[in-house]
Each structure stands twice: as structure tokens, then as C-alpha cells.
């Protein structure tokens, strides 16, 4: 099935660089990943959770280190650990008197300290963890793409079901609660999905740029949208456009840049243009 998709990609993008399999794999992965990060980014901004996604991405080190200690697949332990960290933050915010800033700050520090403590003892762990700092979408495998496809289907089916309620509670949580919306469930859903998507995103853009991948398309979409519906469509369009453009630019001889970083930079240029446009339009 993937071969057909790769052929379609090489037909639509008849550039030399896009005739290579690893580039086709990278583009397909980004085309699956970027709609998820873009729409999640809209909720992240609405719920002021940018620091939350940073915490998840930085928890990757501890997740990988745990895998090495327990002799388990580091990518498996990384995913489980990151999701647990995400759910722990939501739990602390919902069930204790800690503000979300404080809860995120505490968990962030512990997760990073734990990861660094283990990595500092083991050089092989350090090498394993290093690949997640910068990410490498070009090394993505067919298996990763199948996993991303499964995540894509689960994500969009469940997200479409909860989207309206999440919009409602992001306007005002107290009113939503008083009108019978189970706000806790939606917060856990957002935390869970965000953690899963961030784990995959780390592979593409690296720990340092995950938040940018989430936030920038959504922020650019906000600039030019008047409604919640339009924001979602614009975020998806900007996310996909910057992924395609960024990947192709990064592979040019004159560029030779990291693909994840180039995708983020293209999204940023769109954000700047949007901001100027919104300012002029008033």
C-alpha cells in the first residue's frame, strides 16, 4: 500500500530529491503528522498548554533511559513514559490545588533530571538519547509510517467526537462545568493525545522543536481566522504547506539544512506574513 502512496508523491512532486525513497517516506510521515500537530496546536494555544508539550518532549530522555535500564525497546518505554507524564500533569492540575504552571514545572524538572541522571551513567544511553535532540525525519521507516497511520485514524475519529465540547470548555471552563460538560474527561483526552503525538513528533523535529511544530501553524491560523472552524482548516493548510515546502527546501544543494528545523522556519515565515497582514487589516 505504501508503494502506491510513494508513487503518487513522486508524481505530484517531480523534483529530483523526491524520487528517493527516504524522502518519499519523510514526506508521507510529515503529511500524516502535520494535520495532527496543527489541530492539536489550536487546542494547546486555547488551553495555554505550550509548556505542557515541552515537558512531554523533554520526558523522552527519561523514557529512553528507562528502556535501556529495563532492557526493553526504548521507543516503547519512551511512548509509555511520556503518556504517563502527560496524564500525571493533568491529574495534578485537576485533583490538587497546584496551578497548571506549577504542576508542569515540577513534573518537567523531575522528568528531565531523572533522564539526565540515568543517561549520565551510561554512554550508550547518551548516544540513543542524542538522536531525539535534533530528530531525523529522513530515517523514518515503513513501520513508523504504519504506526502513524493508525494514530492518525484513532486521533481524528476521537477528536471529531470531542472537538465541539473542547471548544466550549476552552472559552470558559466554569460555565462548561455548570452546564454539565465533564471537563475532566476532555482534559485527560487532550493530555493523552498530545503526549502520543509529541512522541512521534520528536522523531521528526527533535525535542527542541516539537512545541514550534505545534504552536506556529496554529498561531498563524489564529491571525487570519474569525471563527473556530476556520482556525482548524487554516492550521491544517499551513501545517501541511510548511511541511512539504520545508522538506523540499532542506534537501536542496544550496540549503542542506535539518528537515525538521526547515519545516519550522517555513511555518514561521508564514506566521510573520500573517501577522503583518492581520495588523494591516486591523
Amino acid at each position, binding site marked *: 500500500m505504501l508503494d502506491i502512496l510513494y508513487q503518487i508523491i513522486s508524481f505530484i512532486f517531480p523534483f529530483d530529491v523526491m524520487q528517493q525513497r527516504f524522502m518519499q517516506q519523510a514526506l508521507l510521515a510529515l503529511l500524516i503528522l502535520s494535520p495532527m500537530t496543527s489541530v492539536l496546536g489550536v487546542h494547546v494555544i486555547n488551553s495555554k498548554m505550550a509548556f505542557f508539550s515541552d515537558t512531554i518532549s523533554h520526558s523522552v530522555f527519561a523514557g529512553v533511559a528507562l528502556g535501556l535500564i529495563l532492557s526493553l525497546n526504548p521507543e516503547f518505554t519512551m511512548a509509555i513514559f511520556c503518556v504517563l507524564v502527560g496524564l500525571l500533569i493533568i491529574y495534578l492540575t485537576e485533583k490538587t490545588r497546584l496551578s497548571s504552571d506549577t504542576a508542569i514545572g515540577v513534573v518537567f524538572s523531575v522528568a528531565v533530571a531523572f533522564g539526565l541522571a540515568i543517561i549520565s551513567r551510561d554512554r550508550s544511553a547518551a548516544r540513543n538519547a542524542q538522536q531525539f535532540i535534533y530528530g531525523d525525519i529522513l530515517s523514518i521507516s515503513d513501520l513508523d509510517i504504519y504506526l502513524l497511520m493508525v494514530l492518525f485514524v484513532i486521533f481524528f475519529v476521537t477528536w471529531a467526537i470531542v472537538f465541539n465540547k473542547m471548544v466550549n470548555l476552552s*472559552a470558559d471552563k466554569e460555565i462548561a462545568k455548570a452546564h454539565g460538560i465533564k471537563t475532566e474527561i476532555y482534559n485527560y483526552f487532550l493530555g493523552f493525545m498530545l503526549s502520543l503525538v509529541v512522541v512521534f513528533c520528536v522523531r521528526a523535529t527533535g525535542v527542541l522543536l516539537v512545541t514550534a511544530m505545534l504552536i506556529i501553524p496554529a498561531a498563524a491560523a489564529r491571525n487570519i481566522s474569525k*471563527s*473556530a472552524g476556520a482556525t482548524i482548516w487554516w492550521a491544517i493548510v499551513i501545517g501541511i504547506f510548511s511541511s512539504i515546502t520545508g522538506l523540499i527546501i532542506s534537501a536542496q544543494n544550496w540549503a542542506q539544512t535539518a528537515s525538521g528545523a526547515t519545516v519550522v522556519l517555513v511555518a514561521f515565515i508564514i506566521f510573520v506574513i500573517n501577522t503583518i497582514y492581520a495588523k494591516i487589516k486591523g
Partner: protein
Amino acid sequence: MAVGVELQNITVVSEGNTLIENVSAFVPAGSLTFILGPNGGGKTTLLKCILNIIKYSGKVIFHGAKDNKIKIGYVPQKINVDRDMPLTVLEYLVSGFQKLPIFLGILPKFKKEALDVLKLTGAEGLIDKRLGRFSGGEMQRVLVALALMQKPDVLILDEPSGGIDISGETLFCGLISSIKKQLNITVIMVTHDIEVVRAHADNVILLKKTLRGSGTISDTLTDAKLKELFGIHDKEKKNCHFIGGEEHA
């Protein structure tokens, strides 16, 4: 049929502090009942007990409701919406009800319902405007419309006139009174303005940590009760419209 609300021995303790103690009162079905009291007197806490969004001891009984379950419309003092969030009034009103994701469109049935409640609050012109760009008065009308979208048995308003001036508040209370009559619902409202209470209330609950009185205006808004509640006589309030709020002269 309108729903009556009976409060039985309601007590709320938070972190060792008693916020309200042993409050028992009755809100008649179809009435416009005001809760009056000084700042920190427990008015909002009592509303949250009726909304069932905080822990309390005692009972809230809804007379005329099946299995003691009712629909509540809630209007807070102010909304904490992010002013830059792109969200139209129509989307906000519909988002709590429509199953189809609103980015795929809004169904005519829900658009009509939203328009109907906005017409009731005189805010139909705001339907396609962005939330967060409104004046205090406009926002309150939108929030009342949102509360009415719930098709409530009881409408609860927590100092809804906080962001508007005195004449605006009088008009707003007139609007609420008219909606209550049209829809035959029970309304519970917190306010600081005693003149508004006199003009519109069917029933009053006086609260200062404990219940200081409840019933009709003539029974409850006596000089003695008001002195007990606020420490000043009603006569002294001729030029002091607001009681207990920051505007307290």
C-alpha cells in the same frame, strides 16, 4: 412547569474555613429570587452548591423535577475567554449541543435555536461576531443566551451586572424579568443593587455566612435586617446604590 429549589442545611467548609453554615431557604417555582449579602458572605458559594460544582453538606432539592435532576443555565459574573480566540457567538452557543464538529458546518436546526435565544436577549445582531470583542453589556446578553440554550428549568446568574453601569443593570434585570415570564422558569440572581431588588424581586435570600432572612421583599428588606447584613440602615443608602461591592460608598 417551573421548578422550586429547596436548600436544606447547606454547609460548605474549605481548608478549615466555614464559608456558609447551615443555610436553609426556599426559592419558589417561577420566581425571580435575589441573593443579597456583603462581599465574602457566601453568595457565590451558595450558587455553586445549587450548580453542584463544589463539595457541600446538606441537600438541594428541586421540587417538580424527576429524580431531582434539572437543567440549569448559568451566567457568571464575567467570562474568562481569551480575547484573541477566534470563536463566534454562534459557534459558542452551538458547541455544547451539536454532534457534528463545528468546523464541518453548523446545522440549520441549531442555528435557529441560537438565533431564537439571541433574539430573546436582544443580541441577534451579534450572532456572527467574535466572542471576546464585546462590551460588558453585550457579553452578558450573549452569556444569558448561552444559558437559555440549555433550555433551563432554573436560570442562575452570579452578579451578572459586574461589568455594566447602573442604568445598564436596571435594563438587564428588566430583560431577565421579562425572559422569566416568557419562559416560565425560576431565576436565582446575585446582585449588590438594592434598588434593583426592590424593582424586580419576587423573593429575597439574605446571606452573611448564615441565613439572615428569606421571603418576600416586604418581609425581608427591613431596616433591621439590612443593618444586620451590611451594618447600615436602608435610609443611609439613598445615595449608595451598591452594597457590599467595590462601589460601596
